[in-house]
């Protein structure tokens, strides 16, 4: 296991350096002079420009600039936003809980609905339930989620007036962010109706973000279950006279879960990509909206740092999934 762990970690290092190079290169090839952008509409005098040019180190060789950037990254220094003048690292961590809260709710929704749907479909293979569920899964999988979000807003916010359109909580509630998770903070605050307000804000974005992972998990569960249901030990379990619920729910599902766990882990990238659209539409103050806004504002250090952190996040989760997979399935780590 230790060897497997080490070899996996070894491939992690060059990928990480590569991501650093890419995010560093972007700021150098983006159109527009970063200093002019920073100066904004007031412009900047010739001398001041020169001064800033040297201050940011643009006059030094590109390799030296990269080395400075890279050592900075290793020490947690990702630069400062042009717009807010705050360190990128601080901004990321003040916004990350919002994205994390939304993503956790979305993935829980996807797992809690997707796995039972896949199991029911597999057990009823070829029958009405299977067809209905798998057709809906394919529709979900093909869904342009930005449009899906707008439709839900039309129906639930516009026509029915059940849910608000944007933000994380009504403005009339105000309390300290102890954990950064609105659901927990609103409960801790003890204010009447705060928790309900947070839930009503969360529900539509979570549904939208869950849609594609839900479809993927349902499809994966079904095919994994179908494979397992054909195995001999399932026939043995049935022959022993065990209740179908027990055979399907315990014997089969447990073994079908391995590929499903991988899919859940790998859907983190999917969630972050979906968060870009979902957060933009629902004005959810998280990483996705932050990245889109800084691309619009040409706030290069934020784009650069955000890209690096998001990629790092995906890489770490993929690594954990791989390690977990090696733990569950010894065949993998022998290779």
């Amino acid at each position: 296991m230790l060897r497997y762990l080490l070899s996996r970690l070894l491939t992690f290092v060059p990928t990480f350096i590569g991501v650093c190079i890419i995010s560093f290169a972007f700021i150098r090839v983006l159109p527009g002079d970063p200093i002019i952008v920073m100066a904004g509409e007031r412009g900047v005098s010739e001398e001041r420009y020169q001064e800033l040019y040297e201050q940011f180190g643009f006059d030094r060789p590109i390799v030296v600039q990269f080395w400075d950037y890279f050592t900075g990254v290793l020490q947690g220094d990702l630069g400062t936003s042009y717009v807010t003048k705050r360190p990128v690292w601080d901004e990321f961590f003040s916004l990350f809980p919002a994205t994390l809260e939304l993503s956790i709710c979305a993935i829980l929704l996807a797992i809690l609905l997707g796995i039972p749907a896949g199991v029911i479909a597999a057990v009823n293979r070829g029958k009405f339930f299977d067809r209905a569920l798998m057709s809906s899964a394919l529709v979900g999988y093909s869904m342009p989620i930005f449009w899906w979000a707008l439709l839900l807003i039309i129906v639930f916010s516009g026509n029915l007036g059940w849910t608000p359109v944007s933000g994380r909580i009504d403005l009339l509630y105000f309390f300290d962010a102890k954990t950064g998770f609105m659901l927990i903070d609103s409960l801790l605050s003890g204010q009447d109706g705060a928790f309900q307000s947070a839930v009503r804000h969360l529900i539509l974005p979570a549904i939208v973000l869950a849609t594609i992972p839900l479809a993927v998990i349902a499809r994966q569960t079904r095919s994994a279950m179908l494979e397992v249901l054909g195995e001999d030990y399932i026939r043995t379990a049935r022959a022993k006279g065990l209740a179908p619920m027990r055979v399907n729910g315990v014997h089969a599902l447990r073994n079908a879960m391995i590929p499903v766990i991988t899919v859940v882990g790998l859907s983190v990238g999917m969630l972050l990509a979906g968060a870009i659209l979902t957060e933009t539409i629902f004005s959810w103050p998280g990483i996705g909206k932050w990245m889109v806004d800084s691309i619009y504002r040409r706030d290069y250090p934020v784009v650069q740092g955000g890209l690096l952190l998001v990629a790092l996040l995906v890489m770490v989760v993929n690594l954990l999934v791989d390690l977990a997979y090696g733990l569950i399935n010894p065949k993998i780590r022998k290779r």
Partner: protein
Amino acid sequence: MADVSSSTNTTPTDAAMARPGRFKEFWRYFRENRGAVIGFYVFIFFLLVAIFAPILAPFEPSTQNRDFTLIPPVWQDGGDWTFPLGTDPLGRDMLSRLIHGARYSFLVGTVVVILAATGGILTGLIAGFAPKWLDTIIMRIMDIILSIPSLLLALVLVAILGPSLLNAMIAIAIVLQPHYVRLTRAAVMTELTKDYVVSARVAGAKLPRLMFVTVLPNCLAPIIVQAALSFSNAILDVAALGFLGMGAQPPTPEWGTMLAEAREFILRAWWVVTFPGLAILMTVLAINLMGDGLRDALDPKLKRS
């Protein structure tokens, strides 16, 4: 060399007695999947709409009928047969814009798949045949691209290149390419161990011939399935970029861009939002249905003997 080519040539009588043609066999499996066939017909329908858009559309997509803004669809009160699906805030005919939008979706799908597949297959072939160090470098680069969420990478690339439909297509092609590289490489690795490759090598086939004539045709099945899937992904992602203002620019009647323009009217005029999205969903769904059918028909592992 001569031995190899003569052994693959069969006389006409052999062919007649042997299994049915590849295409026939493929179609037999494909036809069994009813969803795939429906998807195929819907795809053809949208393709025809795209090709004959100028004939089918009652209006030019950019004609602004200033006296007829936000007319609802014909079946609603205030609807008018002149504008069967209503008009947008600038008085442009929704139906005509949707019909012309089909052209952009097919353009996007085709261009992106060609770009991504050509680049990806070439790189994958090279990685599969190359010495280990080159293979490792190529695959690490692909890992790097894959570790950044596709839409985010595409957004940043478009921000570099400048927002336009062409740049959006290039960005999506770059993002989708690693999947082709991985698939091709994996398929090449399996084929390389087989006897027919060894015999071709012994017969003196040079590297380009080995790569493109001997091995590549046998790796195509998973790549074709991937092409179908990335066609729909390309349409979805370019529409998403258009929706974020980083793809096709207004007044282009691209479906995602139309949605972005319609956003502020969602609570007043449901039709300007509903129809472009429905068009995207239908196209993508049709292609995914086809993709499932293709996989069942082409994947030998799932083929029932």
